């Protein structure tokens, strides 16, 4: 039996023919960056912590179950099978890995340990305690995140508070530095619940702190030595800092109403505002490690920018940082989502491969897998993205990875809202003090690679959330791959 050709078939046919023209498919993240799951050894629970690249081309990953694996062919998989070797096991929840001079350093909860395989069987046999000059009480919350070595040869650790709210043993809620001689230098206080610590391209140190008490939203924070990051509970330990970072800051307001960071900066000179707020819930819930792109363009157009892991949303964020009036600030852009577990470790190699490792134990993650080890490869195609977002005295300058279509660079293509958070002892904060600035396009560069936005008003201390929904690329006519940006305006340039 044949069906008669009906009117509805005709519509279908018409739509099908017309659709490539009418509804050109917008590019997806995966057109530019692909995520490859690298299988972990059978039966092993590789709840990924930190990742380090070893000089022999192997990749090391530490796990929340205390293992340290070295992986061969992680760069080449799936062209070559990976080989996983258990370098160490049963350590105490290591969340930092760093390689130096033939030693692999792990930041465990109780100590910084350096390890070496002396007999050459692939397994470490020397475990040297480099530093254990801080307190742990046995509370699960007392995580300890570690950086790699900075340009001075110091390794930095960020110590979580006791049980999320208080500091019940030495230096909980501090960032510490451990120098080559194993000396510990208390470096910053005011930490709540870090998720990772690392560097920007200039080698300055940043950590992420999770939304909670004295922390209205999760954010990326600059660990300026001597700074106070906002949570006063750890400040009792100043008397044990031996003057390493100056005097104890004055107390923030303990009232139920709280205050604003911008206000308290006037009262507490050591208080440093978050460099880039990662608006809680909007872009993620649990930021983790910080990793600069030092590949010089091999990882795409974002060389010199910073990438931040996101555990709950199983994502990676991209961050543009600039220094204004001596303070770091900048913009967060969505970068890539769809990882299999909750990203905790990130590492970008010099040849432009991004490795991620994750776990969702204790805190769920969108990816849904209990653990994962993945690699992100740049496909070589350049996405149409806001490359940089810089503060100007009267607005922002945007640069782009590709020229914009001047016809789309009009006021109507942009929308902005600004807000801040309460600085308070209570857990988290809603967005408050909302401002609805008007955005006008002040100028577009001749090459279409940048434009200036006039924003009225600019509000110091506020997140300026930009939606550039109408902007199109000149060549393809496509919209931005990610249309939103979140700029934290700590300072307005002169």
């Amino acid at each position, binding site marked *: 039996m044949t069906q008669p050709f009906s009117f509805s078939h005709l519509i279908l046919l018409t739509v099908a023919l017309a659709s490539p023209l009418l509804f050109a498919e917008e590019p997806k993240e995966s057109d530019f960056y692909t995520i490859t799951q690298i299988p972990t050894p059978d039966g092993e629970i590789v709840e990924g912590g930190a990742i380090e690249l070893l000089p022999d081309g192997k990749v090391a990953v530490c796990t929340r179950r205390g293992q340290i694996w070295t992986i061969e062919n992680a760069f080449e998989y799936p062209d070559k099978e990976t080989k996983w070797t258990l370098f160490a096991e049963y350590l105490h929840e290591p969340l930092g890995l760093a390689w130096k001079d033939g030693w692999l350093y792990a930041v465990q909860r109780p100590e910084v340990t350096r390890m070496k395989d002396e007999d050459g069987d692939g397994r470490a046999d020397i475990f040297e305690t480099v530093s254990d000059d801080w307190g742990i009480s*046995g509370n699960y919350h007392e995580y300890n995140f570690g950086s790699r070595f900075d340009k001075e040869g110091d390794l930095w650790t960020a110590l979580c508070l006791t049980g999320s709210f208080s500091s019940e043993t030495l230096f909980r809620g501090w960032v510490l530095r451990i120098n080559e001689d194993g000396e510990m230098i208390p470096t910053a206080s005011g930490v709540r619940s870090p998720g990772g610590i690392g560097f920007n391209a200039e080698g300055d140190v940043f950590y992420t702190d999770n939304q909670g008490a004295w922390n209205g939203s999760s954010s990326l924070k600059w660990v300026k030595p001597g700074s106070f990051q906002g949570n006063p509970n750890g400040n009792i330990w100043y008397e044990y800092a031996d003057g390493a970072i100056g005097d104890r800051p004055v107390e923030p307001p303990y009232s139920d109403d709280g205050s604003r960071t911008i206000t308290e900066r006037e009262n507490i000179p050591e208080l440093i505002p978050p460099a880039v707020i990662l608006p809680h819930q909007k872009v993620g819930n649990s930021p983790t490690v910080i990793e600069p792109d030092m590949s010089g363009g091999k990882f795409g157009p974002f060389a010199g920018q910073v990438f931040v892991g996101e555990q709950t949303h199983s994502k990676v964020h991209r961050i543009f940082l600039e220094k204004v009036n001596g303070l770091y600030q900048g913009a967060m852009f969505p970068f890539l989502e769809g990882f299999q577990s909750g990203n905790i470790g990130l590492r970008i190699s010099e040849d432009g491969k991004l490795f991620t490792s994750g776990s969702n134990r204790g805190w769920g993650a969108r990816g*849904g*897998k209990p653990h994962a080890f993945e690699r992100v490869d740049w496909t070589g195609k350049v996405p149409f993205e806001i490359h940089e977002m810089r503060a100007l005295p009267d607005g922002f300058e945007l640069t782009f990875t590709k020229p914009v279509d001047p016809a789309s660079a009009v006021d109507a293509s942009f929308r902005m809202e600004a807000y801040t958070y309460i600085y308070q002892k209570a857990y988290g904060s809603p967005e408050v003090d909302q401002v609805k600035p008007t955005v006008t396009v002040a100028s577009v560069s001749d090459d279409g690679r940048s434009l200036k936005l006039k924003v009225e008003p600019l509000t110091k201390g506020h997140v300026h959330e930009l939606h550039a929904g109408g902007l199109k690329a000149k060549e393809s006519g496509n919209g931005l791959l990610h249309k939103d940006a979140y700029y934290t305006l700590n300072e307005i340039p002169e």
Partner: protein
Amino acid sequence: MELLSAEVIALTSSLTSSTLNASPRMKIKYLLLQVAMIPLSIFAQEDKILELGKLTFQSCVACHGADGKGVKAGDLQMAPTLHGSAFMKDGNADLLTAIILKGILKEDNKYIQAMLALEAALNDEQIAALIAYTTGEFGGKRQSPTANDVARWRKDYASRTSPWKRAQLQEMIDAASEPRLLTDLTYSVYKGKWEELPDFSKLNPVKTGELKDGLITLEPAKDLKGGFGMVFEGTLSIEKAGKFIFSITSDDGSAIALNGETLVGNDGIHPAKTARMPHELEVGTHTYKVLYFDGGGQRFLSAGIRMGKETVWLSKERGEGKTKKNESYDPILLTAHKPGEAIVHRAFLPDARPRAIGVGYPEAVNLVWDADTLNLAYVYRGDFMDASPHWNGRGSGSTPLGTDRVKTAQGLPLQVLESLDEPWEPFSEATIQYQRDTPNPEKEITFNLKHPDYQFRGYRLDAKRFPTFRYDYRNLRVTDRFDPAEVDGVMSIVRTLNVEGEADENLYLRLADTGSQEVGDGWIDVGSNLKLKIEGAGPVHRKVDGKRETLVPVSSDATITVIYRWNTPAKS
């Protein structure tokens, strides 16, 4: 047969009651006999059920009374009144069945009699009839479960072997009277073997249906074995906008999709595990979907929404399955990577400071060495370690297994004593004024403060992965090593403590602080079924602060060997 069982109930109940005198017991028995002999065939179907119910209820009247108001016994009652009981209300027939089957534990003296478990005494038909009769008579509205319903519920509760506690019943009734957030809830069952959630949209369900009570349950798939999947879809009604925490606990994988978008992922093969995600919702209706699969073995699914402090369950199963309490994780026994090797496990461990290190030797003797005190904390033998509390949830530390745990001298190992009356420093601690979020704290807290004379240096593993711990004490480099060895037929632990460098005068190592005494042949009894023998130096016993201690003088570049031997061989 029915007669017999009814008689048994009456007898049992009266026997267990100490206050019931002989005459009412006889009367009840007589009544039972009489009622049981009424032929059932003369009643119409519905009447038949009610008659059977009434007849069955005669087993209950001794305590609940023929009027269901409870029989008075002095100031007390034999049993509570059935009038107004929440269990008699609409929709609670399954809970009523649960009580009839399993009984209620007597936890206080409020009622003289305990509700007995009647699962062996009554068949499904009788229970269905009993519910129809009692709810109609005393509950206000007659419930009419079928014998098949009762048979199903009987299966549901089959694994329970003890009577209910009142608190449990209260929980059940609270749960039953909660508002239902889900409506139009449908399910689809899929057959298959997966290791992660499949794309159900591409599969054909083997069974579909509706869950009228608005509660997600794996019940429709209860007959499927060895791998199945289920998809639930319903309408979620939100009356007040706000931030909610969506949670899902499953064994194995699951996910929640809200309004077509995945909100919570809990995928993969795993024991009961919970994933949560906060999410803001507007007033109105939302489509709520749960995807689930079981890869075989244990199965579990619960889903809830936390609104403020309260969790509203969207599933028949509640809680977080096995992960609710730390103790209930499936054990993860640590085993050596290769046979014949030791395991060195760093974790929070009981009876040791947080920088604890557990060591399990292949000879089935174990110890915990404390890197906060730089000292042996305890020895034990048998199985080494269960890491499940450490490696589940947020991780609370591991649990040493085995037996014969003996704490050795606690606190720091070395001290210079100008006189033998000088007390031993227990540990290095300090105090500080601190209260959370308080500018002028009144409370004082005590915290560990590293002793300036000591520095832990880590450990080295030999070919068998046996650790040698290293630390500095003043100008001494100390190594502390342990080897299993059979001593007089008992697998023991031999400790070798080596000191390199020039020791201060009057430096001592404390080996026992639990009332030790010499018992001949060089052995020192330290209690708890353990003896020590010291080689390389002569022990010094002293009594300080009313406690007998055993010390060993430490000289420059000394090696001290200590045997820790249990008095009897380990039980195999």
